[in-house]
Each structure stands twice: as structure tokens, then as C-alpha cells.
């Protein structure tokens, strides 16, 4: 409750709205990353060499000579982790505020507007986070290696080995679907939080864009694994 030692300005900085704004910015950064990552993955359709060259360039040469070899990837990883940790930390604080805000449960409730994606922002986000850990354990650290041998310089064959197995593709399909739902509500929500919902027209535009970005991510991420599973890439 009221903490009198803070000035109004300090309270505004710590307000739910300010926290949501930071969540929106970090969420949008993560969406930008996902779009880049998705686009990069499509190199699998060009050739094994193109794919491996691209992956190697990301890890070693990007921004060279401004940065020494291999620095960019670490700076970028730190940046993404900071965004993700902030995003999740703020989620936890706001969730707590909502549990108090909501009060006692209704015996019967009849929601008119809430979509499934909106309803699942928290539990879906947590699922997303867990699947993300699984993803990193596979391709980044090489701790779980179903169907492939970990090889830093040959991600093409890691990709092929992993996605030749139907269950890995299935887990990925779920992962991507969860991401897609999070982005569907998150994209609209982020822009509204930042004040872009200036009227009914803007609401429509933001929602259409949200569906577009979410669908683009789903198709772009699921195509390469599907193609491997169906033997179209080998």
C-alpha cells in the first residue's frame, strides 16, 4: 500500500504503467530478434554451405573490425538475456499486483473480449520460457543432442539430425505455436502500452499487424524443420 516516503515522480516511475512500458519495449526487442532469427533459418533452403557460412559469420565476424572477432555474439547474447530477464521479472511483479487487484473469484464469469492468447500471456509465457531453455540446451550448449552430434562449425547437420525425428519437430511445432500466440496478443498490447492505440482505426491496424507478424513467425519457423522431416532438405 501507500508508501509515503516516495515522491509522486518516484511513484510514477515505479507504477504499473511504467513497468508495462518496459515490458513492451523488451518484448518488442525480442520480437525483432525472433524475426531476424526466423529469416536466418531460411538459409537452410539455399545450401549447406550458405547456412554454415551464415552461422559462422554471426558467431565470429559480425561487426568485425569494429569489434574484435567473436565479440558481437556475446554482447548480443547479454543484451537479449537482460531483456528477457527484465521482461520476466516485471511479469512476476505485475502478476502479483493483478492477483491482489482481482480480489475474490466470481462464481460465474462471462468474458466478452478476452482471447485465448490474451488469457495465456502468463502461463503461455512460462511455457515459452521452458521450451526456450530446451532449445538452448540443444543447439547452443549441446547438452541434449537427439539424433545429432554437437558440432560448432556444422550447424547444418545438427539441424538435419535433430529435425529428422518426428518428436523433435512436434516439440518445436508446440514451441512455435506458443510463441506465435504470445506474439499475437503481445504485439498489439505492446503498441497500446506505448500509446499507439489512438482510435478504433489504429486498433484494427495494430491487430491486423499482430496477426500478420505472428503468422509470419509461425510459418517461417516451422517450414525448415518440416522440410527436413519430409525429406525435402537433405
Amino acid at each position: 500500500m501507500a508508501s509515503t516516503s516516495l515522491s509522486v515522480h518516484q511513484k510514477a516511475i515505479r507504477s504499473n504503467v511504467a513497468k508495462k512500458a518496459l515490458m513492451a519495449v523488451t518484448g518488442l526487442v525480442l520480437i525483432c530478434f525472433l524475426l531476424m532469427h526466423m529469416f536466418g533459418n531460411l538459409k537452410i533452403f539455399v545450401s549447406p554451405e550458405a547456412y554454415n557460412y551464415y552461422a559462422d559469420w554471426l558467431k565470429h565476424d559480425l561487426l568485425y573490425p569494429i569489434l574484435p572477432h567473436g565479440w558481437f555474439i556475446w554482447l548480443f547474447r547479454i543484451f537479449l538475456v537482460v531483456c528477457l530477464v527484465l521482461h520476466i521479472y516485471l511479469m512476476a511483479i505485475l502478476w502479483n499486483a493483478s492477483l491482489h487487484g482481482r480480489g475474490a473469484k466470481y462464481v460465474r464469469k462471462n468474458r466478452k473480449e478476452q482471447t485465448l492468447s490474451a488469457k495465456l500471456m502468463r502461463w503461455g509465457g512460462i511455457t515459452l520460457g521452458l521450451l526456450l531453455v530446451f532449445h538452448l540446451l540443444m543447439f547452443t550448449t549441446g547438452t541434449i543432442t537427439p539424433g545429432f552430434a554437437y558440432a560448432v562449425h556444422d550447424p547444418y547437420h545438427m539441424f538435419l539430425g535433430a529435425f529428422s525425428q518426428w518428436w523433435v519437430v512436434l516439440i518445436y511445432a508446440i514451441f512455435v505455436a506458443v510463441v506465435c500466440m504470445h506474439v499475437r496478443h503481445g504485439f498489439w498490447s505492446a503498441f497500446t502500452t506505448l500509446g499507439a492505440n489512438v482510435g478504433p482505426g489504429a486498433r484494427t491496424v495494430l491487430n491486423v499487424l499482430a496477426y500478420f507478424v505472428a503468422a509470419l513467425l509461425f510459418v517461417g519457423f516451422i517450414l525448415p524443420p518440416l522440410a527436413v522431416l519430409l525429406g525435402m532438405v537433405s
Partner: protein
Amino acid sequence: MKITLKIWRQANKNAEGSMHSYQLDNVSEEMSFLEMLDLLNENLTAGDEEPVAFDYDCREGICGMCGIVINGSAHGRYESPVPTTTCQLHMRNFHDGDVIEVEPWRAGAFPVIKDLVVDRSAFDRIIQAGGYISVNTGSAPEAHSTPAPKRLADRAFDAATCIGCGACVAACPNGAGMLFTSAKITHLDNLPQGQPERMLRVKAMVAAHDDNGFGGCQNIGECASVCPKEIPLESIAQLNRDLIASLFRGDGRAQ
């Protein structure tokens, strides 16, 4: 028509509440929802039972006192094609033999006082935190002395129609009071008279909103869908824009 009511009964703020069933046999479809509850209370009183406590004042949709949740929907809007307050909802929206569930607003910031009556004074504290605007009181000023652009004046006027009923909070899965607060912000921030204190006002009202135990907004839109005055969802984006801008200003800093 015959109606079965399931109503939340709770003796006082600290008592455990529960749903109780009541049967009403001669409900006219001309009755308003509150008149139907009056009928129930007459029957209860005649039978020496405690009448159901519910709030109202104007019974014409302008005071904001009468909010209750009907069949899971604030003001029973779900059953009605038009925006409505509970007092303007009529029994013709229901059918013979219907079972109607009636609950109070449920939100951390709106504790139940008795049965269907909640304490909405948290809204007053948000208004208080908004403070004053710089206008001269006394004799009415010449209407044209302060020009207000028509588009913004209309927007301010629409926002000013908020009656503080609390349906937006009741319908929100997070118990946020953002539609209400943003209606007040949109009202004053679009008028020339609201400019001098604009940045301080948004900070103070948002701080009071959080201090009073309302939750955070997830841009779901339940609030605007039940608002009897059709306060638009974009009011919340206006509040967000103003708050973010205000963070870069010194208003409200400790001296």
C-alpha cells in the same frame, strides 16, 4: 414470468458469503432489474427475512451507484445488445424460467460491504489525487475566452461522461482501474484548462491507482465492452502516452 435468482449474500465486510436461491413468480417484463430486486425484497421482508442489500440512487443511468454482476457480466450487459447500467436493464431481456446469477463487483480495491454493495471509495481517492486545475471560480467566464479545438473538446466531453460505476474494474481479469482513470485523464488533458497541471496529474492519479490496490492493464478490452458510457479503449493509450511523457518531466519530484 417465473425467475430463479441466485444471489450473493454476505452479512458484512468480514463475513463469508455464499450464493442463495430465491424464486420469483410474477415478474413483469416491464420491470427494470432493480424493480425486480425490489419485488424480491418485499417478499423477503414479508417473510421476515433480511432483504438483499443493493446500491442505487438515480435509477436513470447517470449516478453510477447500481453496478452488480449479472450472469457473469457487469451491469448484465452480456444479455443486452446496448450499453447499459443495471438500473436501465429490463426484465424483457430475460425469459420465463431463467436462472439469473447476481454477484457484487469483485475486485481487491472494492471490498464488499454487504450482499451486493461494494465500497468504491478507492475511485474517489484517485480523483482526489488528480488535484485541481487552474481556472478562476466565481462568475462564469465568457465562453469564447479560451478556445478549445472542436475535435479535442468532443473527446474530452465523451470521456467526461464516465459515471464512476466501476464496471470496468469489475470486468477486468486484473482488477485494473485503468479505463476509469484514463477517462478522467482524457477528459482534462484534452482541454486548455487542463494543461498547466497535466504532467503532475497523470503521475499522481496513476500512483493513487496503484496505491489503492488496483491491478495492471493487459490491454484485453473487457472494460470498454461493459462500460455503460462507452468510454473507448483508446483512452487507456492516452493515459499511457501522457504517463510515459511525464516521466521525462520534473513535475512531482521531491523538492
